[in-house]
């Protein structure tokens, strides 16, 4: 060992080297450092024995505990499922009316429904389910395919114009782009349609002309009274709720270019019980209003 100068502050000797004025003391490694190194090494050895740890060519040591993160989570998820089954099975088994009349069960519906809805549906329908341009307001009670919970659940499961084989299919034709109606006729029918929910939508002549165009082209889907038809998924045009907006420009575009909203099918992502629960949750939102 080098024996250098003695440092007056600590009383230790230096190593005897010096680099541009910097010296080092020969203070031995503090015991705690060695202690913790030893503890650490022991811990590692133990942990390696118990857990999957070391590679061996084409395999690895599996560890005495047989710990496997994938099996563990599979089990946890299964256990959680079993725990939820206590009430989720009831939802699955009972009919809608029975569930609705059970306030305890409905509490679970609200709790679980809120997060399921926010993580899956809110992107389109909004966190309060009030919709947005192109995405219907689910609180409006102006249903395209019927507002009975069974119908809603079916819609959620198979989707609308979705990639599912059983999907509900609907289409608003492109009357302008496909040359079915000319501009004047479209303007008239738009005026008429808007007049159903807005008193001062346009001139009486235009409304009357529009009424005729409507009778000739639209009643098949929207019905004589323009109140929509659930079999076609065609909306009620007499209420003040618009999926695609109610300004002259919006409605004109709807009739000119057509619409075909796409609601994904959720039966591949959610369980039947979850879908049922969402249908209840969504139905309830309308009521709260």
């Amino acid at each position: 060992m080098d024996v250098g100068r003695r440092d007056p502050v600590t009383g230790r000797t230096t190593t005897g080297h010096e680099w541009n004025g910097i010296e080092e003391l020969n203070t031995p490694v503090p015991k705690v450092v060695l202690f913790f190194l030893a503890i650490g090494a022991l811990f590692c050895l133990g942990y390696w024995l118990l857990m999957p740890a070391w590679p061996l060519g084409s395999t690895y040591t599996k560890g005495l505990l047989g710990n496997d993160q994938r099996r563990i989570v599979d089990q946890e998820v299964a256990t959680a499922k079993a725990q939820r089954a206590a009430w989720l099975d009831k939802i699955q088994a009972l009919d809608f009316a029975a569930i609705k009349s059970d306030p305890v069960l409905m509490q679970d519906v609200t709790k679980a429904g809120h997060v399921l809805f926010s993580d899956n549906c809110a992107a389109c329908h909004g966190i309060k389910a009030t919709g947005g341009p192109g995405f219907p307001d689910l609180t409006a009670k102006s249903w395209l395919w019927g507002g009975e919970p069974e119908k809603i659940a079916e819609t959620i499961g198979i989707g609308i114009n979705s990639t599912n084989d059983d999907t509900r299919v609907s289409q608003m034709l492109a009357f302008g782009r496909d040359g079915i109606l000319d501009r004047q006729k479209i303007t008239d029918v738009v005026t008429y349609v808007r007049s159903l929910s807005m008193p001062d939508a346009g001139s009486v002549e235009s409304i009357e002309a529009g009424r005729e165009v409507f009778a000739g082209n639209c009643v098949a889907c929207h019905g004589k009274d323009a109140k929509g038809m659930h079999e076609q998924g065609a909306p009620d045009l007499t209420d003040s709720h618009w999926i695609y907006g109610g300004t002259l420009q919006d409605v004109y575009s709807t009739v000119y270019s057509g619409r075909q909203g796409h609601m994904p099918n959720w039966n591949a992502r959610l369980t039947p019980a979850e879908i049922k629960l969402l249908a209840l949750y969504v139905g309830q939102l309308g009521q709260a209003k």
Partner: protein
Amino acid sequence: MTKLTVTERQIGLIICLVVAAIGLAMAAAGRGEPFGVQGFTVLLLALALSGFIIARWDAPPPDRSLLEHYYDDPTKVGIVLTMFWAVIAMFVGVWVAALLAWPELTFDAAWASFGRLRPVHTSGVIFGFGGNALIATSFHVLQRTSRARLPDQLSPWFVLIGYNLFCIVAASGYLLGITQSKEYAEPEWYADLWLVIVWIVYFLIFVRTLARRKEPHIYVANWYYMAFILVVAILHIVNNLAVPISFGSAKSYSAFSGVQDAMTQWWYGHNAVAFFLTSGFLGMMYYYLPKRAGRPIFSYPLSLISFWGITFMYMWAGSHHLHYTALPQWVQTLGMTFSLVLLVPSWASAGNALATLNGAWHKVRDDATLRFMMVAAVFYGLSTFEGSFMAIRAVNSLSHYTDWTIGHVHGGALGWVAMITFGSIYALVQWMWKRPAIYSPKLVEVHFWLALSGTIVYVFSMWNSGIIQGLMWRTYNENGTLAYSFLDTVEAMHPYYVARTFGGLLFLLGAIVGTYNVLMTIRQARLERGVEAGGEVDLPLGRPAAQPGE
């Protein structure tokens, strides 16, 4: 520049012209595309530098007596570049922080979106700010502790300027949309290749200077700088292996995919932290802290343990970035266990630094420069403790993907990396420009408190948001369903994002004050040139040191 010999000027010019030609070729091959813009950038910078050399072509050749002095010009320029990158990159940091609080605070332009600005910030601080600081200080430390001059005058310039060219190409590339997407290794294949060349020259400077050293032993600071240079080279080359779609295009595809790529990337990413942000800066600390404190290193045996402990164990720890992922669990086990034991050499380094201050604590109280270094050592200890803690699988299951990681990063980055750099630079500026003191010690004090409070605000807000976010993601209702949607957590983060932006702003202000102080010190030195007022006492070059006991 006037210190370069005629041959060095000639070679320098040739290099510039070669680089300009490469730039021209890139510009031609990538016409109308981002790759072409990169080419133009290279071309312009190389031409500007050529012009600079030509303008000084006729300056008289330097006299031989020059060789009796250390060669510090690259270090001086490096210091200024360090401060420049600090301000730019931290400004971008504040901007991206603000974008997360107020997403509309942007332009309808691709370059101004969060995803492109974020790597400008990370590369800007790590490579621009951190890298320049390491290069500048390593040249200084290497010469003093070897008592040897740099081997020639051209290669240090090549390293410094070549490295900054890399940084500029990288950062402007992100804005243009050029990226490999590998965190901290985003630059594309041509920038990666260029960095390899620069790095080899950097390595050779070290080898050649050490070969000519007058001190028999290599000082600890240089062990760390060497580990930094060597290991970063290995990491960089392996992780960036890629196949370009053509030599006329910026795009390349990584040689690795999926799980192997993930492991390679985080073997790289974690050790970029270890050898860039830790080893290199420990090298810095091992010189400037004892020097400024006027104290010997507390323990040489402790240095030994910490150096080899860090060098060996860090390389195993990368898989703690991949807990519970599709990476096989055995690798996660190794990553976790080594990360835990890693705490011992890490705290040994921090402890060694703090114990070195024994007998100099009164200086810490009075001298903000030394206090920067002291606080840096404390934050180094804190963030390594936190890191080892987060490497535990159960903890990581909560912290991963959240702002907790960001808090940990900035505890290390602001508290350790930036503080040790500012401390070292304040000491170095005064020595380099031969001043008795920095322009304004008061402003150093101001900078210190801005930096410290900024760091604390930043780190605490991210700890809060990270832990809240992590907990919200896994909170269950009593009926066994998730209690919060993802969107709930996005909304809950807002106040913390505002607080973080404020903390970052404080830190940025500190950096601006520091830059002003450095520039004013330089200006003062220029104004009073000839009045050699003080500075570091360097032992003379050339005389072998007497080594008692050998």
